[in-house]
């Protein structure tokens, strides 16, 4: 979907604030139900952004990790009063099971947020944020990120051609493979450095280093950004207030209290869920604009 639509149309600084707040609150709050609500909310954001495709692509990588956390925590940690069973002479406590599960939900929440971050905050926006602080650092960061795929592509070419003269890491005894690998890396570096000199020339030829730099990427701070920032601030303030009063965090050790939500916990849950879901308002608004445009056509 295009950059000027819905969540993506918000100013990079608003988006940065949104994700910073979402992650900070996700780490402060520690109640399985609150975090589950947060994860569900950010999953909804993901679904609105790309139908959850990026999340589904990433899931095979992080779901096993979450399961591992759930399984490992009771095996490693034996704190807690309520013993469920013994594995050999090792107590498995209810508290450590719940703690592991909560930790897994917390991670799930953060990862889901991060998946939507990758969709919304493009490299351009990231650099725009950075370029304000230090244009040189931003340029360096971008050139470095561009270097990795370039090196990989070049290594592929090099390996294909060097195979014709017998320098390969795919066949032969281990010692010769290692030697060949070193040769390939050396050739790759020599070649890349040679080219980097020309890139440096090209930069200098266009006046790099002649004085202070400005940054080209431009995002305007629009009224909707102001509204978004205000609404996000309000929701975050509510959640933070609840947290400061001791709500939204489950007391697990030494003895598990009930999973039931108190009034304060419910407020924290509501504030956090609203916070995470807020940008969907603009997604919904822009979609409505399309629908009404289509119906009047």
């Amino acid at each position, binding site marked *: 979907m295009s950059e000027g639509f819905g969540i993506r149309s918000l100013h990079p600084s608003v988006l940065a604030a949104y994700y910073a707040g979402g992650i900070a609150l996700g780490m402060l709050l520690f109640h399985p139900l609150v975090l589950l609500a947060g994860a569900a909310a950010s999953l909804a954001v993901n679904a609105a952004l790309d139908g959850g495709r990026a999340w589904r692509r990433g899931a095979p990588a992080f779901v096993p990790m979450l399961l591992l956390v759930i399984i490992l925590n009771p095996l490693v940690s034996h704190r807690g009063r309520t013993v469920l069973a013994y594995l050999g002479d090792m107590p498995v406590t209810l508290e450590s099971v719940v703690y592991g599960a909560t930790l897994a939900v917390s991670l799930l929440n953060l990862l889901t947020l991060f998946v939507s971050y990758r969709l919304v905050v493009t490299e351009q926006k990231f650099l725009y944020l950075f370029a304000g602080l230090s244009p040189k650092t931003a340029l360096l960061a971008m*050139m470095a990120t561009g270097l990795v795929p370039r090196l990989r592509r070049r290594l592929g070419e090099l390996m294909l051609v060097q195979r*014709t*003269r017998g320098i390969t890491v795919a066949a032969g005894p281990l010692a010769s493979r290692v030697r060949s690998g070193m040769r390939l890396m050396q050739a790759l570096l020599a070649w890349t450095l040679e080219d980097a000199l*020309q890139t440096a020339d090209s930069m*200098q030829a266009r*006046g790099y280093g*002649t004085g202070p730099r400005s940054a*080209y990427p431009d995002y305007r701070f629009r009224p909707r950004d102001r509204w978004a920032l205000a609404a996000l601030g309000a929701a975050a303030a509510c959640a933070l207030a609840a947290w400061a009063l001791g709500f939204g965090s489950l007391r697990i050790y030494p003895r598990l209290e009930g999973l039931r939500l108190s009034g304060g916990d419910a407020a924290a849950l509501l504030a956090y869920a609203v916070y995470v879901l807020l940008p969907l308002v603009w997604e919904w608004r822009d979609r409505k604009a399309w629908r009404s445009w289509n119906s009047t056509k």
Partner: protein
Amino acid sequence: MAELELDQVTFTYPGAPAPALSSLTLRLKRGEFAVLCGPSGSGKSTLLRLIKREVSPGGKLSGSIRLGGTPLERLPAREAASRVGLVMQHPDNQLVVDTVEHELAFGMENFGLDRSAMRRRMAEIAGFFGLEPLLASRTDELSGGQKQLVNLAAVLMLYPDVLLLDEPTAQLDPLAARELLGIVQRLNEEWGMTVLISEHRIDELLPAADRVIRLEGGRAVFDGSPRAFVREARRRGDASWAAYLPQVTRWALAEAEGAESAEADPPLTVKEARLQWASRDPALRAGRPSAPAASPARPPGPPLIAAEGVFFAYGPQEPAVLKGLDYTLRQGDFAVLFGGNGSGKSTLLQLLAGLRRPQRGTVRRIGAAPAARRRAGRQAADASFSVGYLAQNPVLHFAFDTVGEDLTDAARRAGADRPEDEARRMAEALGIAGLLHRHPLDLSGGEQQLAALGIALMSRPQALLLDEPTKGLDPPARRSLAGHLARLHAAGTTLLVATHDVEFAAECATRCSLLFHGEIVADGEPERFFRGNLFYATALHRLFPDGPPQPLRRQEGATVR
């Protein structure tokens, strides 16, 4: 007023015995289009870099370089950077950032322009170049021609007064080169931009240029109009001068040689040749050849490598590059493969060389003796193949710190008893014996090409597959490479060359094929192949649609060698 003045410029690289440029005096008027030519190492790049202060080499400089009357070294840094623009040879290495739009903005960012000014220039230049559709693209996804167009546009963003181009089309295919030169010409004509361009292939440039400057050994040996350049080349009768003339001009000069008639001016383009001679020569008027195009028919040799029904794609989601292609390389062929950019020429060569496997269809080596084939099968990755492959970029072939080590290693792997001797013999045969101690990356393009050829030849391949070997070479290097390939062919090596270089094919090949849409659409002897082609044809074939008056090889031989 002269925009650019060079007065008695002499420049010596540190440690060099002789100056790279000696007492060079040059004046470029505002809005002039000057072409700089001369063999590799004649000081073209040094001259351009001295004018572009930011990239000027270290060394001893005497004389003065003035820009609009002000000595170059007295200009403030920003003014010097913006008033002279430089486009270099390699499209990739000049790109700095990730997207086209940002690349175009890079120079303006360096000058600290504010955003509204940047946007405005962006709109102007992107509009002039027609780059709007590409603005959001990533620079590494562009074709070579598009990259070079972006590089030119990025330089123009600073509104330079003088535009310098250092062999800007050497790495491009002819179509992209023509497009780039067309834009440069428009800049000169419509904006009055002062242009100084160095090029090896100046066929396209001569008709558009105001001045031609020829450097030899750091001295300007010629400075005058293109017509005067042609007359001078004719007067000298020097092959190294003639090599820089358009093919039509060379042909016309050779034609007029016997007549000794005080010809007004030899033609620079096919159009001029038609107009000049249509009235005089009835054969030309009728478009008939004045002599039958005789090319000795050779019986086709036995098949060596055969591709049958080959399908190839670079990934399951990628479009197929080759679609059911059939091609047979026969023993004794000097075959040439034409095709547009991205038509799959390189892929086909790699498939035939056994570097890649087709998803469907087969590539068979028929020529290899059964024993050799068995060995090749077992050591599929080893160099003992009877098929040699030379990639488009010769740099890919080097793995050591000197050319000598590279050749020696290749000889050792090929099983030579005394690899050092073998390496020296190969270097002598290719005329690069003086370069054995040099680093491969320090060589010129032509020397790199020969060194890579030496590495590939060490295993004594029965067939040699070359990917655009003449790309970026100056006429002498190109001639020397063509000579070596002709000798290899005469010695019994089967050759397959993928190229855009139509003249090279017309001179050397015994067979031409055209790859289009993943299939071979034309295949035959050069004369039959070129006849009637408009795009994949030499200028002479365009002048004589029914075939040139005499076989091109002989005629070429008379003028070039």
